[in-house]
């Protein structure tokens, strides 16, 4: 039996963006529910390490205009500058707000919030690194997630834990709610709502080596695509330079912010050759590419596909006090003491710049004219405002979730006041029920795990840091085959209670769709910009490609449209660091 709930607002996802939005909506109405496939505080915001960027100027002069310039330049000029301006201004208030809610930031000797250096963040429009990242050791995200959840407890926000979203109820351009599967008992629930916010996070699990949690399978993004919403800038996927070799576990950029150095097999600080001003604190897209170039030229450690992150000169005190968690990771997973030995690292799939297109109020937009979908919002990594453009700067994901979680929540609260419940579609849970039934009864011979392994391996090989037409076309063919085989899977668990076999099958379906949009968008963009590097088109081409991609799927076919980039203060120039 399907249960029907009624809430003014339903928020899908309990990471930073979802919880921040929930707190904002909760000020206007008590009828707000957070639906998450995880338990609270398990969300991936909790793994963010190094810090949140805000021009507080606590340790040296800083201005939000500098933060804005860095963000725009870091984005390779693809970010919408009106949105970046709002983000960098609001970041300051958002950090103070977290502090007032009890977030235990590290402190300066005067008792102010402590700040550290981070990649691509500079003073005076690119002169030198600046201390802008506010931090709580190297578990800043953990503290943000906990603080937001604590406030949700205080404000009695209602949670539906371990509810997996399956469908978005959208008719005549009006959002009417969602359908979700309760993992505990396998029952479907319809959430009838005036407004829905997707804050479902990223989809790094489409790649083999990734910093992303098992749960980051792009559920909300894929559901939006299936319901006719275009996806923006999906060709831009960030690889973080320092994942632990083979495991992909993140070693925060804070390690380089505190003075860590990348070295090749000769012990050379190779970033001196590529980015003479910012060196190891150049933006992530650039460093990841340089690392692969070093590896290709045989300068990987022992000739293999990894390099060294050297912290040994920092001393035990700095390493253990300022970077305790990553020290623990190195000791636990590698048996290495970073005080004495360098850490083997390789680029790891980290962050989707693209996603569900929204305006600065978090409203999902459906076309290149920015027409909003009524009552449907998105924020955080699943959304594309776009403040990160073609490459996100470190710390800005935390800024994004707080600022746009808050703004989306504020707009939702306003919208709810003036809107009625639009009627539910007939047979609201029908499509979700059919999808589950189809997966549970599918009687082929294919295994979800094997299909997923192939997807991850092939995407890593053909659609990661370096891309070519040949590779992307081959990937499209592979995806067609994988999607065909996906129709012939067989699950072993046919039960109702906590069926993670079914859940993994649903998630693979989402990943296959999102990998396809990524490749289709990447194939079309015949230039190199930010994280999207085409070996066959190695130059940025502003005349042709200074525009956002909008990828639609209609009856299984993709249609690409484009919309202009908003440029206000900073004209595109060549990007040098």
């Amino acid at each position: 039996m399907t249960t029907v709930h009624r809430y003014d607002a339903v928020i899908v996802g309990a990471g930073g963006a979802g919880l921040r939005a929930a707190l904002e909506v909760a000020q206007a109405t008590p009828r707000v529910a957070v639906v998450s496939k995880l338990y609270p505080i398990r969300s991936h915001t909790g793994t963010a390490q190094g810090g949140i960027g805000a021009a507080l100027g606590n340790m040296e002069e800083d201005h939000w205009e500098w933060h804005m310039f860095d963000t725009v330049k870091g984005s390779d000029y693809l970010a919408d500058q009106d949105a970046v301006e709002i983000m960098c201004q609001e970041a300051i208030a958002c950090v103070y707000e977290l502090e007032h809610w009890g977030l235990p930031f590290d402190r300066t000797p005067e008792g102010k919030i402590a700040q550290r250096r981070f990649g691509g963040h500079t003073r005076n429009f690119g002169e030198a690194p600046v201390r802008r990242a506010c931090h709580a050791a190297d578990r800043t995200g953990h503290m943000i997630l906990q603080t937001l959840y604590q406030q949700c407890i205080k404000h009695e926000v209602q949670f539906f834990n371990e509810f997996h979203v399956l469908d978005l109820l959208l008719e005549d351009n009006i959002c009417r709610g969602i359908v979700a599967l309760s993992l505990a008992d396998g029952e479907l629930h319809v959430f009838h709502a005036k407004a829905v916010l997707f804050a479902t996070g990223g989809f790094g699990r489409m790649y083999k080596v990734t910093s992303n949690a098992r749960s980051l399978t792009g559920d909300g993004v894929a559901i939006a695509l299936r319901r006719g919403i275009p996806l923006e800038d999906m060709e831009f996927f960030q690889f973080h330079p320092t994942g632990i070799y083979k495991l992909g576990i993140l070693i925060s950029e804070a390690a380089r912010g505190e003075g860590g150095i990348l070295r090749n097999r000769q012990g050379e600080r190779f970033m001196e050759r590529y980015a003479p001003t910012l060196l190891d604190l150049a933006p992530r897209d650039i460093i990841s590419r340089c690392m692969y170039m070093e590896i290709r030229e045989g300068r990987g450690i022992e000739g293999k596909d990894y390099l060294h992150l050297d912290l040994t000169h920092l001393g035990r005190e700095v390493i253990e006090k300022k970077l305790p968690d990553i020290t623990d990771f190195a000791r636990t997973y590698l048996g290495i003491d970073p005080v004495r030995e360098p850490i083997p690292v390789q680029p790891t799939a980290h962050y989707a710049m693209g996603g569900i297109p929204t305006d600065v109020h978090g409203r999902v937009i459906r076309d290149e004219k920015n027409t909003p979908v009524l009552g449907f919002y998105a924020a955080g990594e699943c959304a594309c405002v776009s403040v990160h453009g073609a490459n996100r700067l470190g710390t800005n994901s935390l800024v994004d979730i707080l600022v746009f979680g808050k703004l989306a929540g504020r707009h939702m609260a306003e919208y709810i006041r003036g809107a009625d419940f639009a009627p539910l579609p007939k047979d609201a849970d029908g499509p979700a029920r059919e999808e589950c039934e189809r997966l549970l009864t599918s009687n082929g011979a294919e295994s979800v795990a094997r299909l997923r392994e192939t997807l991850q391996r092939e995407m890593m090989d053909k659609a990661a840091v370096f891309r070519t037409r040949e590779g992307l076309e081959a990937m499209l063919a592979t995806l067609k085959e994988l999607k065909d085989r996906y129709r012939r899977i067989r699950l072993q668990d046919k039960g109702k209670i906590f069926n993670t076999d079914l859940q993994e099958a649903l998630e693979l379906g989402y990943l296959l769709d999102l990998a396809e949009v990524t490749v289709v968008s990447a194939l079309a963009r015949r230039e190199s910009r930010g994280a999207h590097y085409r070996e066959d088109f190695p130059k940025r081409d502003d005349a042709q490609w200074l525009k956002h991609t909008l990828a639609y799927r209609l009856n299984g076919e993709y249609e690409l449209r484009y919309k202009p980039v908003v440029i206000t203060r900073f004209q595109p120039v060549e990007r040098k660091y």
Partner: protein
Amino acid sequence: MRVLMKIKRFNPERDRAPYWAEYEVEVEPVDRVLDALEYVKWHLDGTLTFRRSCAHGICGSDAMLINGRNRLACKVLVKDLGSPITVEPLRGFPVVKDLVVDMEGFFAKYRAIKPYLINDELPPETERRQSPEERARFDDTTKCILCGACTTACPSFWANGEYIGPAAIVNAHRFIFDSRDRGAAERLAILNTRLGVWRCRTIFNCVEACPRGIDVTRAIAEVKRALLFSGT
């Protein structure tokens, strides 16, 4: 290397009682126990059920009893255990299915200690000031990831499931000793009961179980001391 996994299983839709299932898995020595569990799920038996998410010890999803000790499956390497490896659900919580336990009661206790900053004074326009020494005072207990390993390793909790448990006390400590908080008296009153902090018998199981290295027993002792010297 080949490892024998002995996993305690229970599916309420199918089984009348829990039973031990054995699986031979092929793993790398540096693989985590989580990798071995995933090997079983992905290659041998898709019905095996467990929680996991971040896979590097931060999200707190995969606490379980591994070779008789509460550990995060993603923070123990196979090579450090050898073979066989026994895996059971956390003790003292109702089993939902296989290694998945019902944590609602655990989170209810967390919520009971008012785990949020209590301070009604108007904050300044910028940050509240706090010295590095004041900040260090409660640093250890900010590390908690609410995985449940400490509470379910505690004999006092096994003996009486109503005991508020070390995890809730740790989180109370995090606020009681925060110089910005004004709710210490409220929280201490909640903990000053037979099923509160006084049920701790200083057995230190929680310290051994904590995957974040929190000195849990010390935190509990500091809360007890605060009670003794607060006159409540």
